[in-house]
């Protein structure tokens, strides 16, 4: 098993954090947009960067951590290269979205509370309603929407990516 690669923390990225903070005038009230922008850069919110944001905004790190963990949009653990979002809103749920989730997770050997594969290739999450109920059940892979899914077609999507990554 490959160990988790270090997230990309190049100097350029960190400079981006400065720019983000300046752009929002280092205002504590701008914490959420600041975290959104930081996550755009890093694909998640590294602890060290959150501490830096807390310092710059003069609020307690515990408060920043609280906000970062309150919204499901924010991730405090590194996410995989490909993000699979399965809709579990009402319409998708009644059209059996959960068996699709189970099948994909089984194929990727994700057990318990784990959402990211050990090779950091996939993160599988559920979301509440993507607003595409007519296509239920819906799976979104890296911002591409796939409708009328089944457990088999869900697994197939994942396998295609694996094949692409290996070639």
């Amino acid at each position, binding site marked *: 098993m490959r160990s988790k690669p270090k997230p990309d923390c190049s100097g350029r990225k960190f400079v981006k954090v400065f720019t983000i903070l300046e752009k929002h005038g280092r205002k504590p009230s701008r914490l959420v947009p600041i975290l959104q922008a930081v996550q755009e850069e890093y694909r998640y919110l590294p602890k*060290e960067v959150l501490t830096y944001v807390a*310092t710059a905004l003069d609020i307690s790190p515990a408060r920043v951590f609280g906000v970062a963990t309150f919204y499901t949009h924010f991730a405090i653990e590194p996410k995989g290269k490909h993000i699979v979002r399965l809709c579990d809103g009402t319409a998708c749920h009644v059209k059996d979205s959960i068996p699709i989730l189970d099948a994909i997770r089984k194929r990727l050997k994700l057990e318990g509370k784990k959402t990211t594969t050990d090779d950091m290739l996939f993160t599988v999450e559920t979301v509440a309603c993507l607003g595409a109920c007519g296509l239920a059940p819906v799976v979104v892979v890296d911002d591409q929407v796939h409708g009328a899914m089944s457990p088999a077609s869900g697994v197939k999507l994942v396998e295609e990516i694996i094949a692409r990554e290996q070639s």
Partner: protein
Amino acid sequence: MSATIATAVKTLNIDGIEVPINGERNLLELIRKADIDLPTFCYHSDLSVYGACRLCLVDIAGRGIQGACSTPPEPGLKVRTQTEEIREIRKISVELLLANHERECTTCGKSAACQLQDVARKLGINKVRFQPVHKPKPVDRSSLSLTRDPNKCVLCGDCVRFCSEIQGIGAIDFAFRGHDAAVLPAFGKDLGEGECINCGQCAAVCPTGALTPRQEIDEVWKVLGDPTKTVVVQIAPAVRVAIGELFGMPPGESTRGQMVAALKRLGFKYVYDTAFSADLTVIEEANEFLGRKTNGGKLPLFTSCCPGWVKFAEQYFPELLPNLSTCKSPQQMLGALVKELLPAELGVEKKNLVMVSIMPCTAKKFEAKRPEFAKDGVAEVDHVLTTQELARMIEEAGLRFTKLQPESFDMPMGFKTGAGVIFGNSGGVSEAVLRYAAEKVTGKKLVNPDFHAVRGEDGLRIVEVPVGDIVLKLGIVHGLKNARMLAEKARRGKCDLDIIEVMACPGGCIGGAGQPVSRERDIRKLRTRGLYDVDKNMELHKSQENHFVTECYQRHLGEIGGKNAHRLLHTHYHNRRRIAGETIELGDSPEAEKVKVNVCTGTNCFVKGSQHILHALLDQVEKEELQDKVSINASFCFEKCDHGPTVSVDGNKIQWCTAPAAKAEILQKMKEKNQ
């Protein structure tokens, strides 16, 4: 038409009774004033209204069911506090909390003082119909002062609000959401690793056993039972006016005679009074102050008796550390004297002499473990028990506290004046110092020792007191948010005060987190009055009148503020990082041949512009394509904050650093590596 103004009192109706409105902030206050005790978890009169526990619900005619805590009183409202529906909602709310609560009441430290237990009993909940959904979480025992048991948290947030609103810290906060919601230190780390200053007020307001003072009772029983050990004890002033509450006595009643008797019965060889070393503190600190005042030393002088405040200052105000009095706290002064003098006097080996202190405070547990308060591995104070813990030991030993025949403190370190006793309440340290300074400055005897101007309950008091030809300006604060306000001013050089007395806890030590848990509204006032009464009941009120202190100087310490006094009674402070943080590695993993640069981005260096240095260095590395030769990292706090910004280049720390200085050093190191 007559010109009389209608002065009819405005009223509202609570359960059929007309109740006058007198500026109460919310219905709950009014209802409680009408002697109806609505249950609450999340309401605390000192804190902002949260409205989460849903227990103070009332039925308002025309509006339906509302939270009393978050409804302002309005004339004419018809309020009912008891209806079938309200009772049912309250019961369900508590039942749901109980479902996820670790209900091991018999083994819980908060048992008998727990509000959840109390409310469940009052509401007659005899069965919990719901299954728990929470898995057990580990108990956090990392802090020297507090134990955090997340399995008992009801998410009322009292601790979170106290820490941020009164102390201005925010060491803990809500994290996650929904049924995963929890109160956690930053990043889910342990409490002992973060910014917590150990004041323990989170535990004092916690309605359950989720946050409790760390217990040291077992360790103390062990040394008491060991025949090779000689165990001596000191009692802080604030303990004597509060411990009686746990044995049914009224708050504020002094119980020192029974307390001493109980300690002797438990097996303590000598019982000393921390008020003795408070007298000593007064003399050392007043002379330190007068010295600074006449020699143009650093002012304002901040007091240093409160270990919560000292850690706070070390974390957030490194440049003010020279303003802190170098005096140790009375607890440590007494510990130092005992460990210095008693071994020879009693003919016991130093390692077999054990010093225990009884404190109203949880931060004293942390203070006693500070490395600077131990010499050759022997701590000045070995164990710190809170007022609550001592009461529990007395109960465990089966002693009937109120029936004990009073006994006296042991001499000489049990002797004190009233000045040492009032150290336990906000304003007391200032008054004690004034009683000394006034005589010293004027050279005349002070007839009336009372300085009423410095007494009071407000969390931030500025007073001017004429002493001879000069006027002393004093700041007296409790609650660290208030301390922060004055410290910010002092940092900017905009503070013309002479002395600032800081106590972290509301009302001073009498409101410490080690004191009995009380929901009595006037508790602080009663305990404070108790201490002033003790002062009045004594014959001596000025530390300089304590002849045992005078003798101590003559026989052991030598000159006031002299070399020996400094060795035993004074200390130093150091910068302290506020959070255990990892270095942010901004390049690839650094290799041996690279010049490794760490730019501090801790709070203080950040304020002093370290971000610009970091930015400039990163730009340069990129522009000159030095990525293979230099690795630039952001790090958290070298604990050199007063000399910041700090940049470390291959381990060489540059203080008061600028971007050009850092660049020059990097070039130099690169040159050295190439050779």
